């Protein structure tokens, strides 16, 4: 993947990089949180605008993680890299967790605004559908015992999912125009008061760096796990 196909070079390259990412993520999260609670409340939404600073980054990086999963699946399928499969597997859990967070914070944000915990609008429904894609991916990977076969089947689904995502997103948006022709201003979409940009962008970057840190750490762990398994198998053979 991106030339780092052989594990040794990948481990060497990401060795020093991963701690830096973890450090940067912590700093960004701290600064972002601090900024999120120093900006003035929104005249219309009141304090609930602060929820946006955790909702939107989670939704954005939930999608970002699926893109990483899909692209890794492509490399795993086409170039048969074991590393690419590890990358796809490693992106699944953080991505699903971020998407679930986006759903939870989204409904918390909606309640004071629309009076209901869940609204079937285009954005929240798309996040829910993305969560279903993760569910399907993880269910498939969990129910095939043979590791090698499970990995390839999951790679096919990861790639198919990535290709289908824009189509499904389009159909949800089209569906939204069908049932709610007067599409009212969905919160935080366009009219973002510039004063909220610093916390918003910091938190967005923070979630992104955190995802990278989680992702690389999980891949490195998987590389080490496979080395342990092969070493144990060889020792069992020699014993």
């Amino acid at each position, binding site marked *: 993947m991106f030339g780092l196909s052989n594990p040794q070079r990948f481990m060497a390259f990401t060795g020093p990089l991963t701690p830096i990412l973890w450090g940067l993520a912590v700093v960004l999260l701290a600064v972002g949180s601090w900024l999120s609670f120093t900006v003035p409340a929104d005249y219309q939404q009141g304090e609930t605008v602060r929820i946006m600073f955790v909702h939107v980054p989670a939704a954005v990086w939930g999608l970002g993680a699926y893109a990483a999963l899909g692209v890794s699946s492509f490399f795993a399928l086409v170039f048969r890299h074991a590393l690419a499969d590890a990358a796809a597997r490693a992106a699944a859990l953080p991505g699903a967790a971020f998407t679930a967070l986006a759903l939870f914070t989204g409904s918390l944000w909606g309640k004071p605004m629309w009076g209901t915990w869940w609204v079937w609008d285009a954005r929240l429904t798309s996040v829910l559908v993305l969560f279903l894609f993760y569910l399907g991916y993880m269910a498939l990977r969990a129910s095939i015992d043979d590791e090698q*076969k499970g990995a390839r089947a999951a790679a*096919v*689904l990861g790639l198919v*999912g990535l290709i*289908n995502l824009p189509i499904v997103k*389009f159909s949800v948006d089209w569906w939204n125009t069908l049932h709610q022709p007067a599409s009212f201003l969905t919160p935080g979409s366009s009219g973002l008061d510039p004063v909220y940009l610093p916390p918003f962008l910091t938190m967005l970057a923070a979630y992104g760096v955190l995802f990278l840190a989680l992702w690389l750490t999980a891949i490195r762990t998987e590389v080490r796990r496979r080395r342990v398994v092969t070493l144990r198998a060889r020792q069992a053979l020699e014993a």
Partner: protein
Amino acid sequence: MSRPSVQREPRPPGLRGATRVLLERELDLAWSGGGGPLLACGFFVCLTAVLPLAVGGDFRTLGPVAGGVAWLALALASLLSLERLFERDLEDGALDLLALGHLPMEAVVMIKALAQWIAVGVPLGLTAPIAAMALGLPPGLAPLTALSALIGGAGFALTGTLGAALALGARRGGLLIAVVVLPLFIPPVVFGAGALERASSGQSPVPALAFLGAYVLFAAVITAFASAAAVRNAQE
């Protein structure tokens, strides 16, 4: 026993011949045991009958959702016989025989998808308007329901075939196929039910049907390659 003369050059069945031969067998297997399309239609009708029992038989509540429910039932009924599509062939070794035919695996999976559409999709498509009208869909929409159900049924058959191939060799195949495939069924359900919705509110359903058709072509390309890859993977 007279010595059978062993001719060297077998007459290849040619593309059409092999396709016909496999299609016939798949249809025979799908409709074997007398069940035939009755099973899928039976499930479809059951699902439709349960709704009024659940929410009351008043057409004022059923009418507006009739088209949508018919499409939901169509999607679920299409999931029915997907497990049979590959699982049985893997167990009895037929998949290896299919892999060594003249046609590539990409063609085999497409023929299976076609057989799935003919055996399940078409009967469901013809039952859909009847079930929808029973739920209060204005009779004027019946032809549109049938047309959209037939096109959408092809999308369900194709994506369902892909789901069946992916879940091949997995434990709990049936349920897994549903979880894997249902998110991919969203576009046909949205466009299909949307076509009915548009038509019932006087607008032209053609754009929705066009999207439905586009999804089917899109699903065909994806299914051919992805299913073949999934089947080869499970065969190893």
